[in-house]
């Protein structure tokens, strides 16, 4: 593997932190956090992807505005609703389009202009087409040839086998199903064993078994020191990739970090909790009467979902109410400690 050093961008950079959270209308994203320790370096020394105050406009439309983040080895997810700017961001990170302003460093260089840096990136673009008149082996072999690999055919066969494609399949790619084309796209990104993977919706078109296999592959790549940046809108899949997320909304960075940690920082946001108890109607009514919850929805004969802005008081009150009414409390489960909740909160302003 080619050793990689990331030059420190000269311009101002956001403060480093394991978690950055900010509203979608403000930059830098660390405004909701206490100032970071001054000794923390930004970008991190082992960062393989660095975006520094990156902006991209298309005429009057500002698609990405002043976004800064750094990505370290492992699996990270780039999230955002439609129109959030994540595809534009990914295209800038892979060099396909130039930022209007700001700096991008990936795998030791600017992928737009640095040929060697591009050689250290494996890209799975969003579009479906992959030289439709070629066989899958020819497509991946050409990728190997253009990456200066020795024994390109052997490498192409290896990459196709890795995504469970038969290298000797004697059909042009244009006749493949979407899932098969997707796997060819992933194989051409893998063939040169790059340092950094950028994948735009890589699981599209795959069946559940293939999705599971790909998720395991991405996790494996992350575990051996590769940087895997995946843009996806399927949150339950992203949750399986790992917990590091970069959330974009309205063209700005909404948050970056471990999504569990991001959720914990949202103390001012109401939490949803599922209660499982006998006599659930009485318990729900008493909780409302006590003021410990903002709302209560009875979902079954023994379950209710409540919303509370004071989780400590809620826990104390619910126990007391259950005791007073001889209700047997069997479960209190937070409903918001998942990626979807984090995503809904962070991007809520843009919906």
């Amino acid at each position: 593997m080619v050793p990689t050093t990331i030059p420190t961008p000269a311009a101002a950079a956001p403060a480093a932190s394991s978690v950055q959270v900010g509203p979608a209308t403000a930059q830098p994203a660390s405004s909701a956090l206490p100032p970071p320790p001054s000794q923390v370096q930004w970008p991190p020394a082992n960062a393989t992807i660095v975006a520094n105050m990156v902006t991209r406009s298309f005429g009057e439309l500002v698609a990405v505005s002043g976004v800064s983040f750094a990505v370290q080895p492992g699996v990270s997810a780039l999230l955002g609703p439609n129109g959030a700017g994540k595809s534009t961001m990914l295209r800038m990170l892979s060099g396909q389009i130039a930022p209007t302003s700001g700096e991008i460093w990936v795998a030791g260089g600017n992928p737009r202009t640095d040929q060697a840096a591009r050689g250290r990136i494996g890209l799975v673009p969003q579009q479906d087409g992959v030289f439709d008149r070629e066989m899958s082996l020819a497509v991946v072999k050409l990728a190997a040839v253009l990456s200066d690999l020795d024994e390109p055919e052997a490498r192409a066969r290896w990459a196709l086998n890795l995504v469970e494609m038969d290298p000797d399949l004697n059909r042009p790619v244009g006749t493949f199903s979407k899932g098969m084309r997707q796997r060819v796209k992933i194989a051409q990104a893998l063939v040169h064993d790059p340092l950094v993977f950028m994948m735009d919706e890589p699981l599209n078109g795959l069946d559940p078994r293939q999705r599971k296999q790909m998720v395991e592959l991405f996790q494996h790549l992350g575990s051996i020191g590769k940087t895997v940046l995946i843009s996806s809108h399927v949150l339950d899949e992203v949750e399986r990739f790992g917990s590091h997320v970069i959330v974009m909304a309205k063209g700005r960075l909404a948050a970056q970090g471990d999504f569990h940690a991001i959720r914990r920082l949202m103390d001012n946001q109401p939490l949803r909790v599922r209660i499982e108890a006998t006599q659930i109607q009485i318990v729900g009514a008493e909780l409302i009467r006590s003021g410990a919850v903002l709302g209560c929805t009875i979902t079954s004969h023994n379950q209710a979902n409540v919303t509370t802005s004071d989780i400590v008081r809620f826990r104390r009150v619910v126990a007391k109410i259950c005791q007073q009414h001889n209700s047997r409390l069997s479960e209190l489960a937070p409903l918001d400690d998942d990626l979807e909740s984090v995503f809904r909160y962070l991007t809520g302003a843009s919906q």
Partner: protein
Amino acid sequence: MSKFQGLFKLFSRHQMTTGRLVLIGGFAFVLLSAALAINRSPEDLDRSRSALDFLEGMGLGLAVPIIALVLASSTLGDLVEDETLVYLWHRPSPRWMIALSAWLSSTAVTVPATVIPLGLSALLASGGSVRVAVAVAAASTLAAVAYCGLFTLAGVMVRKPLVWGLLYVFIWETLLTALFGGLGRLSIRSYAAALSNRLAGVGPLQGLHSVPASIIACLLIGLGCVGLTTWRLNKMDIA
């Protein structure tokens, strides 16, 4: 297989669609049919002059630019259209290699697709003059070199390069150069026609470009367009 070979093979295969082969065959059929008609015309006709006049209009003025347009504009243009250019662009290969291999592959397909029917037509229409046939074949080769460069560039410069290419062929190369004589010196067709007339030795030759000037101009247009295609590949947004 080298990078250049890989790109060349991809571009060459990509151009060979059924529709394009039908177009090439159609032009060949029309040219050979018309040449046969000239061949069967009255004895007192200057066959060499007639052959050159006919092939300058139908061959160098229409068949070569249209076939070059259809083939060359697709080499990179189709990849821009279906967004597959990124698979070549994103690899650690120099941009000039993509531009050069696209130009050479379209030229390599266009030259036999035009030289063979034009050469045979010249031979037939001129009543068996090898000199006229060689002159027309050389001129169509040179024109293909220049047109392929121009239309390869069009594939990455504009959307709908076929439409723009047709406008260029009919408005610039045909209409404006016919209406304004001075503009004729700025058309690829004028260099190719000058070469065919001079090599065939069929007059009048006054005012025509010289053979070296024609060759150099067409090569410069082809290579210049490769340079501009390289520049465009460096600057353009991909997919």
